[in-house]
């Protein structure tokens, strides 16, 4: 009896060890394959090196930058937006199509990555008292600022949202997010949305190149990390191509186009006093 029991325990113990070990073995062997085979969805949560590899291809001109020195950002020129009515709408729908953003009929469930709203809502610290006609009448785009010092990443208890070292993009790992919504409370820009229910039935046009999300996770603008990895521009930037309304690039590269615009024009950022160092600039 005793011997049998010991034997049983031995086998049981061995199988438990094997059971624990097996996933690790599978994981080790499958992860590189995953990263290369599905480059697009992996871009969000692949190791930094992989993302950077893709990124260097995307921005040949920036390839000489030190791997840690990239900080992607954009300048939005509201003069151009005002001259081209409908441009912002195009940019927004390009984003919706690129990222499988669900369109809920109510604002309670709204998933927004880039959206339009009046000046006084985007720039709450600026006075709208006797504001110029232009600021009073046109809508401004609001999106994640991809802060250099992001409070959302500080708040996240699982590192499901994090700054990608090689690009400065504030990214999300939809598979790690536990849905505590601490990041939503921490973001001073209201840039984050939560999937209060399954978003899939509300996706109008399904794009198979980007993962859909499940209920219970947070999401937000990812500066099109998946498109950058393929050498493409962010969807909203591409939608404004030729107008100069949105300039995108490496803020740390003195020779970049985005820096040329910043050197020339007076720009403002949202809530700069909070110390988050936003990477999105506006020319009003």
């Amino acid at each position, binding site marked *: 009896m005793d011997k049998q029991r010991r034997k049983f325990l031995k086998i049981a113990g061995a199988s438990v060890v094997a059971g624990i070990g097996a996933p690790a073995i599978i994981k080790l062997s499958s992860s590189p394959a995953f990263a290369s085979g599905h480059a697009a969805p992996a871009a969000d949560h692949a190791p930094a090196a992989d993302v950077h590899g893709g990124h260097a291809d995307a921005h040949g001109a920036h390839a000489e930058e030190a791997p840690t020195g990239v900080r992607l950002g954009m300048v939005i020129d509201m003069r151009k937006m005002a001259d081209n009515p409908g441009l912002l709408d195009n940019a927004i729908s390009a984003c919706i199509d690129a990222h499988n953003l669900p369109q809920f009929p109510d604002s309670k*469930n709204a998933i927004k990555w880039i959206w339009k709203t009046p000046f006084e809502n985007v720039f709450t610290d600026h006075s709208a008292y006797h504001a110029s006609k232009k600021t009073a009448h046109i809508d401004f785009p609001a999106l994640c600022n991809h802060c250099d010092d992001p409070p959302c990443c500080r*708040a996240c208890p699982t590192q499901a949202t994090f700054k990608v070292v090689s690009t400065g993009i504030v990214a999300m790992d939809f598979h790690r997010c536990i849905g*505590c919504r601490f990041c939503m409370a921490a973001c001073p820009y209201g840039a984050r949305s939560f999937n209060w229910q399954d978003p899939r039935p509300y996706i109008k046009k399904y794009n198979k190149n980007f993962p859909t999300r499940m209920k219970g996770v947070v999401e937000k603008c990812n500066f099109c990390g998946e498109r950058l990895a393929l050498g493409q521009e962010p969807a909203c930037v591409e939608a404004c191509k030729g107008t100069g309304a949105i300039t995108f690039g490496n803020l740390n590269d003195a020779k970049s186009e985005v820096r040329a615009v910043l050197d020339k024009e007076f720009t403002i950022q949202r809530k700069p006093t909070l110390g988050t160092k936003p990477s999105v600039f506006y020319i009003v």
Partner: protein
Amino acid sequence: MIEKTLKGKPAYWIWLAFLGMFMAIGAACYVRQYNFGLGMTGMSRDVSWGLYISQFTFLVGVAAGGVMLVLPYYIHNYKEFGRITILGEFLAIGAIVMCLLFIMADLGQPMRALNVVLHPSPNSMLFYDAIVLNGYLFLNVLCGWVILTAEKKQVKPPKWIYFFVYLSIPFAVSIHTVTAMLYCGLPGRHFWLSAIIAPRFLASAFAAGPALIIIACLVLKRVANFDAGRKAMNKLVTIIIYAGLLNMFFVGLEFFVGYYSNIPGHMHALEYLFFGLEHHGHMYNNLVPFMWAFVILAFGSLALLACPIVKKDDFYLGLGCAGLFIAFWLDKGIGFVLAGFVPTPLHEIVEYVPTANEIGITIGVWAAGFFVVTVLYKIAIGVEHEVEG
């Protein structure tokens, strides 16, 4: 000692069945929420925390309040608290159980909760909150159980347990401090961004926790033939009054800073809470009745507790404690968390109203907490009766 929970008068079983019914309703509501998602609640993109997190915040305070018995008894050797210190520890266990349940109910992906452990993030306050809450739960279970076992055997508790008893005191302070830090370190949420949040939390906790213990003692006196002793109760009332007044003082300081500095961001949430906030011609004032009920109940109860009659009459004592407990629940369990989201980061105002399903889960969790406390108190009182009888 667990066998003591299995023997009781019909009233005991009816009470447990009553709680069990609400727990079952809560569980059914949770299944619905689990299947559909948190869209079952009244929370939205703009008010992303609701009843669950506000209950959690309040109950952390109730748990921390138990230290107002532990500290005088173990540090100052205040013997009168000898009979009821265990009640404070067991109440803390029930409160922490509720806290953890509320956190789980609030998660969008509860099956991934262990990610907090698997991917420890020392920069997140939630990481520390998980540590101190579970630590405090463990300490109270350990200390309560070891000391009660010693009492049952009528021997002195082992010396090593005192290390954990003393450790539980800073832990009690830490659970509420860290919970305050969840809020007060967030840029762009002006109402929460205040250094006085942690002291204010502690003050209201040290009033609300002991108030609930007094209510429990009064109930136990009637139903379980357990007398905590007048002297102990009166001392607790003194603690409650001072802590309660401190909380009201801190609330007043928030008003001063907001309104004297005249900085809109510092006034908006207070205005929304107490007077209603006008925005684009619409008046938003959902929480105004709750907040004035808080102020009136708090001052009324504190005044009542200061009256000499409370020292003799159980009814007025219970009334005062219940009033203060409800008042601070309105303040911290309703107003504090919700007002932090007003206005939104884009200066819009979105009001939150919980759904029936959400309220069902909330009541279910409260019932579960009371269930745990009832069972634990049954054990504690059973042992005391055994020792005395």
